[in-house]
């Protein structure tokens, strides 16, 4: 394409993502967003104005070199596009699929002020997928340094730290308590949003190229403790996430049919309960499901429920059940990615806004039969700046339900802090670590990702893993002291 003038670029319309048909996809677990074709990607890339002072880069938590990769992409130089991408982001195929772009890069794009932002996330995914299938930008390992690093947890924070330290020639061992690596990317985020083949592809490539020793089934704090690791390794990075679920303190919380979103998603995604009995782990949800909360976790849980209900209906011939979101604030405050909310709506999820559960009701066999809620209205803004929901007196009502899934946020899992004296934690249970380098209060121990910030995002966990890796590398080279 000939070089375009800015006003010509601005005339090109943002390209929609081709999606699986909304009626079809309710009944399967395949990926919803199908990805741009090369032609669409290159035309979308033409929309970028190549700002001198790119706001999008400032909006990205890790400062991906967005104008550069987009320029290479539209010039058709995919190898260069991948190279630019990988300067800051090791996992573009994953981030392109799950980042909340509307509040990050795309939210800052100049074009978005008047019209629609460049579809940076979709372009990122396109570049990431190209790299997955072509591997044009191989990871190389520097000569061995003889230094040993233990990375605890194999979520985005752990993987990134492992890759960036292994490249320097250090010998890296990555410990994971579950039977497979990936953290939330594997057990939490469903196949239809982030295909497991993408995650496995990225991880096994890095592990193979860089000779990372991946030890699954190793629960740090139990199989080995942090202090034991410090005896054997020169540096330890904790990327253990925030996997501990919280439950509401309301009557009926221990009835059969009440579960945490983590339990539900782990059954469905990690253990593949949607393929029971070919896979051993079952999940039982009945015909009416309420998911309490409206973050990404809640959207994933409700959309998994919707699919399970459709699969059940297809087997029994009955009409499909209902999957509900129950959220105490209004639609404007929903914290989930926009695209997920939009997809959930398309798929037939029922949203109950300004509705707060007060009791779970059960029958004599202790099974859930209903969810008692109260209606809310928005009052004055609270500390978070969002308008605080207040109860409308006397507005209680009962929704018939078979299953209630709690998606109310999670905290760091304390097991790793056994035998870890000196490692300070906040009152929320998160590890204390400085933001620039990821250093904890315990010598030779770094931490990053959800275990430090509490439940956050894939990209922020990756960024933390990257910054910690840089500091670990400097420290092991003797370029930085601990104090």
């Amino acid at each position, binding site marked *: 394409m000939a070089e375009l003038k800015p006003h010509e670029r601005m005339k090109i319309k943002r390209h929609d993502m081709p999606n699986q048909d909304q009626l079809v996809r309710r009944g399967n677990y395949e990926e919803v967003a199908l990805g741009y074709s090369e032609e669409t990607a290159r035309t979308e890339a033409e929309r970028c104005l190549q700002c001198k002072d790119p706001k999008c880069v400032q909006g990205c938590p890790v400062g991906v070199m967005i104008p550069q990769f987009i320029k290479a992409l539209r010039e058709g130089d995919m190898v260069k596009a991948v190279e630019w991408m990988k300067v800051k982001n090791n996992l573009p195929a994953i981030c392109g699929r799950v980042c909340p772009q509307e509040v990050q890069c795309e939210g800052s794009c100049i074009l978005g002020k008047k019209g629609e932002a460049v579809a940076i996330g979709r372009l990122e995914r396109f570049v990431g997928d190209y790299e997955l299938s072509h591997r044009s930008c191989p990871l190389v390992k520097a000569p061995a340094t003889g230094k040993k690093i233990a990375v605890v947890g194999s979520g985005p924070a752990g993987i990134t730290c492992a890759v960036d330290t292994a490249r320097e020639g250090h010998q890296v061992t990555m410990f994971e308590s579950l039977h497979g690596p990936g953290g939330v990317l594997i057990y939490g985020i469903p196949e239809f949003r982030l295909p497991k083949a993408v995650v496995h592809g990225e991880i096994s490539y890095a592990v193979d190229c860089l000779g990372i020793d991946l030890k699954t089934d190793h629960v740090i704090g139990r*199989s080995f403790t942090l202090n034991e690791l410090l005896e054997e390794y020169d540096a330890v990075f904790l990327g253990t996430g925030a996997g501990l679920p919280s439950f509401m303190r309301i009557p009926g919380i221990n009835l059969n049919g009440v579960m945490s979103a*983590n339990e539900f998603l782990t059954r469905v995604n990690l253990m593949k309960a949607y393929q029971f*009995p070919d*896979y051993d782990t079952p999940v039982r949800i009945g015909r009416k499901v309420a998911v309490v909360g409206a973050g990404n976790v809640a959207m994933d849980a409700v959309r998994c429920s919707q699919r399970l209900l459709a699969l059940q209906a297809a087997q029994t011939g009955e009409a499909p059940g209902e999957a509900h979101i129950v959220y105490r604030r209004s639609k404007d405050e929903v914290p989930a990615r926009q695209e997920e909310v939009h997809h959930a709506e398309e798929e037939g999820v029922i949203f109950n806004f300004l509705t707060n559960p007060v009791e779970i009701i059960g029958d004599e066999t202790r099974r859930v039969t209903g969810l008692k809620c109260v209606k809310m209205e928005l009052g004055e803004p609270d500390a978070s700046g969002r308008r605080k929901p207040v109860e409308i007196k006397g507005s209680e009502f009962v929704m018939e339900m078979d299953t209630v899934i709690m998606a109310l946020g999670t905290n760091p899992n304390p097991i790793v802090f056994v035998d870890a004296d000196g490692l300070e934690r906040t009152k929320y249970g998160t590890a204390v670590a400085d933001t620039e380098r990821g250093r904890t209060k315990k010598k030779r121990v770094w931490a990053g990702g959800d275990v430090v910030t509490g439940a956050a995002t894939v990209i922020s966990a990756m960024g933390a893993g990257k910054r910690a890796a840089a500091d670990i590398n400097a420290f092991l080279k003797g370029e930085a002291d601990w104090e």
Partner: protein
Amino acid sequence: MYRILSKEVLSDVVKLMDIEAPHVARRAAAGQFIIVRIDEFGERIPLTIADFDRDRGTITIIFQELGKSTIQLGKMNAGDSVASFAGPLGHPTEIENFGTVICMGGGVGIAPIYPIARALKQAGNKVISIIGARNKSLLFWEEKMRAVSDELIICTDDGSHGRKALVTEPLKEILDNKDQKIAKVWAIGPAIMMKFVTLATKPYEVPTIVSLNTIMIDGTGMCGGCRVLLEDGAQFVCVDGPEFNGHKVDWDNLLSRLSFYKDEEKKAVEHYDHKCRLENAVAKGEK
């Protein structure tokens, strides 16, 4: 992959296996459990540690073939491998010299009570053990239990070996004996047995520790599927337990949670039987 080093058939439906898992054995202690997953399609099943050998790096597990996974595991042999083996999970038993203690094992619960009885004995306690099962063929480790107990009482429901009684009968007799103060009771077995043991010890106010085997998925505190209702709120069996003060457990809640997936468990066994029959038929056809 974790190799099965040896297998012993303790009864028609109870099997023992030594599994090579040095990362688990190195810190394993009485009272803890492991999670095993047979293959790619497998569920994660918790099993209490029956014994361990730190030098050899092995863990002994004993299981009763009840559901699809334990039936499948029971068909495996020395030399085969399981896909995952994680642990040691949960807290170890608190071992001290308490005085005179009672260790009770019901059915396959005899396996996990053994290392506890052994550790208590080593700590200087007088150990009275009561083991029981429905019938003689389901009993095992009688001699091992005798070796670590000052007194061993054996019960079967049908009288085919030892006393024809439920384990709670000799328990009550011992508790009634005013000359002998019992400091603590451990009970491991089917939930219903543990429930009745705690009901029996309650009037005597003898602290009673039970080891709960709720439904679990990760076994590391991540899902909350294992939660148990205690007098003072819910706790996670996999991280807060597996041992609890039995007098505080809401047993009816526990029993109902254990039965939640009954239909699916039945379906899984049927599906597995069907698959095995098909495979056998195919194998025969080819010969």
